[in-house]
């Protein structure tokens, strides 16, 4: 049961990462931006696990678990911000949230 070559997995991970990055760059809705971030993180996870299997090395899987934990925390903060913005009736458009302009 070898399954597809590791290159395929890496390719899928790259595509997923590209979609995520593009989402972060061009979408303006805060929720979608967060979603795209998750996509990028999981693309990373996929690549880690694929290579972990390829090299018979467990370290990659451990990394993936760590990334998940961090992703969960990040989502907590991100969604918390979205809820806070919503409560104040602020726009969820990232381009209008430019208070910190120098």
């Amino acid at each position: 049961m070898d399954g597809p070559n590791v290159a395929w997995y890496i390719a899928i991970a790259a595509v997923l990462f590209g979609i995520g990055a593009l989402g972060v760059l061009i979408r303006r809705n805060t929720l979608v931006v967060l979603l795209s971030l998750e996509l990028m993180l999981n693309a990373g996870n996929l690549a880690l696990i694929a290579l972990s299997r390829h090299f018979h090395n467990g370290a990659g899987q451990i990394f993936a678990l760590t990334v998940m934990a961090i992703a969960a925390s990040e989502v907590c903060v991100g969604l918390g911000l979205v809820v806070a913005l919503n409560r104040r009736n602020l726009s969820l458009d990232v381009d209008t949230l430019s208070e910190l302009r120098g």
Partner: protein
Amino acid sequence: MTGGAWLCLLAPLVGTILILLGGSWLPRKFAAWTATASVFVAFGGAIWAFFGVRSAPPTPAGGLLPLQVPAPVPAHGELTTAWTWLQAGHFTVPLQLLVDPLSTMMMLIVSGVGGLIVLYSIGYMDKDDEERRYFAYIAFFVFSMLLLVEGGNLLMLLVGWGLVGLSSYLLIGFWHERSSAVAAAKKAFVMNAFGDATMALAFFILIAHTNSLSFNALSAPLSSTQANLIALGLLGGAVAKSAQIPLQTWLPDAMEGPTPVSALIHAATMVTAGVYLIARTHVIFQEARTIELIAAGLGALTLVVAGLIALVQTDIKRVIAYSTMSQIGYMFLGVGVGGYANGMFHLMTHAFFKALLFMTAGLAIHALANEQDIRKMRGLGKVMPFTKWCFLAGALALVGVPPFAGFFSKDPIIASTLNIGWYGYIFYACGIVGAFLTGLYTFRLWFLVFPGEPSPFVREHYHDHNGREGAWTMLVPVGILAVLATVGGWIQFPPLWEPITKWLAPVAPTLSVAEVSSTQEYVTSAVAVLVGLAGVALAWAIYSERKVAIPTAPFWRRLLEHKFYFDEAYNKIFYGPAVSLANGLRREFEDPIVLQTGPDLGETTLATGSLVRRIQTGLLRTYVLFLAMGAAGVVLAFLIAK
């Protein structure tokens, strides 16, 4: 005997610490008596050490033993080591005291005369606002001075040397609300620091060549250049501390301090430390005979110059201060030609009669509402007879009239210059001229202040202390010192009996060139006494009988009143250039560079900030774009590098 030395050293320190810790909790009188008691305990320790040294079995003759590390015990004394203080490789400095004839003699003088003067201070400083601080300082001074004379190696000596300078600074500036006192304290400190520095340099040379700072290291084989340099450095320290030309200008200004301080520090003990230093390190001075003769020459020069300046001073304390410089000049002359015992003997008698003169002057100043101008004091003897007679005893001892103390100690110094060579005759002439000047300025002071009918000023301002001339704590020490100034010289009368020379012989034997025949002694004594009396007679004719007019030589008078323009010259040579250099640096460096850097730095930062802040758009997506581009850049860089 070492127990006595430790007791002697530590008692004043304990007194200081008690007064300092007690602070304002202590009653004023208690602080005063603590200081006095601690110094008298030190005197007890000194006596203990003295009898210890006296009964110690004489170690084999030959003076100091050759250099060894650790240091051997010097002849006729004991080196007591508490612990190793400093250690660096093979170089060690132990914390040690040296108890030998020379140090016990100094211990007795410092703690004995010191005790009397501290007792006198109780009356003199009574009702001063900061009495306790005064007594803490003065006990600390006695501790420092004892450390100086008891120190068992050169570093301990230097520590004591520095600490007496510090306590002298603190006590000169004791009345710190007077700006003149603060200036005088600074002047004394700076000039002494110069001497400390030359001493330290000498010690560095010594360490470099012998790897040791014990007294025995001085007798190690050194090249003549090294010996000369070391001796010169030590002489620099001695000259600064003892106010000899060319570093003498601080001593007259130091009279800004309280009078007991002038008596203790600037007459009896600290300023004579230079004489002690030369006697203690005479081994190196014998190696560097030229330097030793320079010391004698400076002494001879100072004794004449200071005697001349004393002739025109009008402040009672300044006259005595110049007289102190002049007498220390005699001591330098004595130890410089090689008669160490002569110098030390004069140091001892001088401590008696000069402390006495200062303290009687203090009685007068105290009774006249702090007036120090002798032109206002005429006829003081009528109202202060005790002060008058005690002052007379001191004055006669200073002039060297037999049987007062100065006669026995000054004449051998003058005589000892006779056999050393042609320059000896110059020294001899200086000594004789000095004797004449001493008689003249001392009795000028006497005739101006004491005899005759009281002047209106004295009548108006004189106030007694409960019917006496001062508190008993002031009168008793003055009385004791008057007795000592009268009989203190009888200990030694060369060439008939010389116990002090014999006592010091194991440590600092008189050089053979400084030994003179009995005829030379007697003739010198006769000449010196006659010349001194001639000075007295001239003073009598000028200032009492007014038969001889004061010579009006405007040039000379101006020269003397400006103290030979030493202060002015130093201002021109050192102070002036230093100030112009500082002003120049401020103009050329500080104002344009140091002070301008701060604003410049701020403006540059602001300008850069306003430039850089443009990239801070506040748009999240711009940041992400930068991030992505950065990541892509890193990846590309790796790929290319591969």
